[in-house]
């Protein structure tokens, strides 16, 4: 889809295709300048800072028991919440794209709320809901389940954070799924479960992995909606971003940057794994 226009003379630069459209230098120059200033420079500072006390200094911060516990909690709670969202997000996306019922449009619009609702608002709302006197917290207390101020609270907060990512990744795939395939399967005598397992699940699998990855990445870095409900006890319910905040408050820039770099590296490895899974899956389906 390259819009090539007839041009006279040699191309303007060897690294780009000639075009009759104006404004490349200005737009591209501004894009590079803005990205350089707003994204590359700050990230360079993040990458450079942790090594102030050498490689050993970096590992000392990252492998400190309190840092490790926080990293473990952030990434495990994010993975658990993303997994729960894959199941319940699939249910939600399925109902929203397959059935028509009164209130469907409102329910569909509500899915996006975690994108738009400020995290601090979600945070205090969850703390009020799941606190000892909250609507849900009180009921759960009778069952002996404590959510607020425990690691379980982190998981609960991340459920809302990840939901829209999973639902919005699945919905277009479910809506584009050719009804003819399912009809053909019915004609050939397939039952509902066979249709789901043999036709729908393979098509959905890449989107499920993509949704999981998005929800996981977002959940691992989440701060605002977690800190009010988590109780923030070191070694127990303290998340990794909070460790960064605490170190910054003590003017330990190198330590804060070390935890930040660790978070970015773990996220990138997780992303590479999910990308690899998607590619492997696509290859198998094609065969």
């Amino acid at each position, binding site marked *: 889809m390259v819009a090539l226009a007839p041009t006279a003379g040699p191309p303007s630069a060897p690294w780009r295709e000639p075009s009759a*459209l104006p404004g490349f230098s200005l737009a*591209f120059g501004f*894009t590079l300048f803005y990205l350089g200033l707003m994204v590359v420079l*700050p990230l360079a500072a*993040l990458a450079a800072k942790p090594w102030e006390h050498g490689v050993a200094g970096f590992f000392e911060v990252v492998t400190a028991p309190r840092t490790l516990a926080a990293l473990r909690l952030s990434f495990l709670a994010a993975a658990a919440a993303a997994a729960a969202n894959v199941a319940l997000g699939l249910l*939600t996306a399925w109902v929203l794209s397959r059935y028509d019922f009164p209130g469907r449009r409102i329910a569909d619009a509500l899915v996006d709320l975690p994108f*738009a*609702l400020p995290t601090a608002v979600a945070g205090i709302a969850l703390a009020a809901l799941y606190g000892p006197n909250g609507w849900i917290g009180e009921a759960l207390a009778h069952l002996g389940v404590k959510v607020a101020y425990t690691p379980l609270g982190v998981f609960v907060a991340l459920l809302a954070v990840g939901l829209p990512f999973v639902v919005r990744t699945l919905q277009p795939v479910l809506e584009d799924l050719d009804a003819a395939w399912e009809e053909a399967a019915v004609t050939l005598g397939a039952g509902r479960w066979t249709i789901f397992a043999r036709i729908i699940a393979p098509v959905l699998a890449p989107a499920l992995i993509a949704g999981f990855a998005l929800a996981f990445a977002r959940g691992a*870095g989440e*701060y605002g909606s977690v800190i009010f409900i988590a109780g923030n006890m070191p070694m127990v319910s303290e998340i990794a971003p909070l460790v960064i905040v605490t170190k910054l408050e003590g003017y330990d820039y190198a330590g804060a940057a070390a935890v930040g770099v660790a978070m970015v590296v773990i996220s990138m490895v997780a992303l590479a794994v999910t990308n690899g899974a998607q590619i492997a899956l696509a290859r198998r389906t094609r065969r």
Partner: protein
Amino acid sequence: MIAGAVRRPLSGPGPWLLAAGALAWLALVIGAPLAVVFAQAVAKGVGPFLDAFKDPDCQAAIRLTLLVAAIAVPLNAAFGLAAAWSIARFEFRGRAFLLTLIDLPLSLSPVISGLVWVLLFGSRGWFGPELDAAGIKIVFALPGLVLGTILVTVPLVARQLIPLMIEQGADEELAAVTLGSGGWTMLRKVTLPNVRYALLHGVLLTNARAMGEFGAVSVLSGHIRGLTETLPLHVEAVYNDYDFVGAFAAASLLAGLAIVTLIAKAALERTAMARTAS
């Protein structure tokens, strides 16, 4: 058109159960937190709810939030247009890399998006001593809040524009240029009208994120009441003072903003779809 699945009315116990399950899940995870914000805000009556907004710190926080968004949103919108024009209209080496770079901030923790500016401009940061000597304050002041907000929302407009502009193709713009239109005239008369819904959508999302940003600005604000606290930070401060009505009243304002954003977004999508259908 793709022969997509058709939505059927609920019939039989299976679909009813599925729909009930999905709606219960949405009500629990999204509906209940939203409802509790408004319920807590008016828990002691309408009077105390309204009084919360008479607090000068709350008013200062509202003004600061509007100011930060008024600076960050237009800058990111201009960037989104420039990036989309470069990427969707020209073929050059490194295009894919540029796209990855634009998306990168989305996978950062908001706290890291604040931290990086402290590393650059904080009192012990790269440029800290020079800034101190020159008497310029970035961290714990308005510029820092703006920078943190920009980093968190950089990709949002660009991501709305790029796929749409690639899909639309350059034919109309090439025609305008061939007919002798200048670059700015083409932008004003062809490009902007063609992408206006996507642009507005991106601006809406950027604005909602900018006004509600917490993690990044929390690191950069210094938490000086009435001076460097945006509305979400004010919510936290008042909540930690056990002034729950004040906290939830301010939070209800932000929740209202989120609801208005979603309604506007749905209306935009419907208008855009009606335009493409006709």
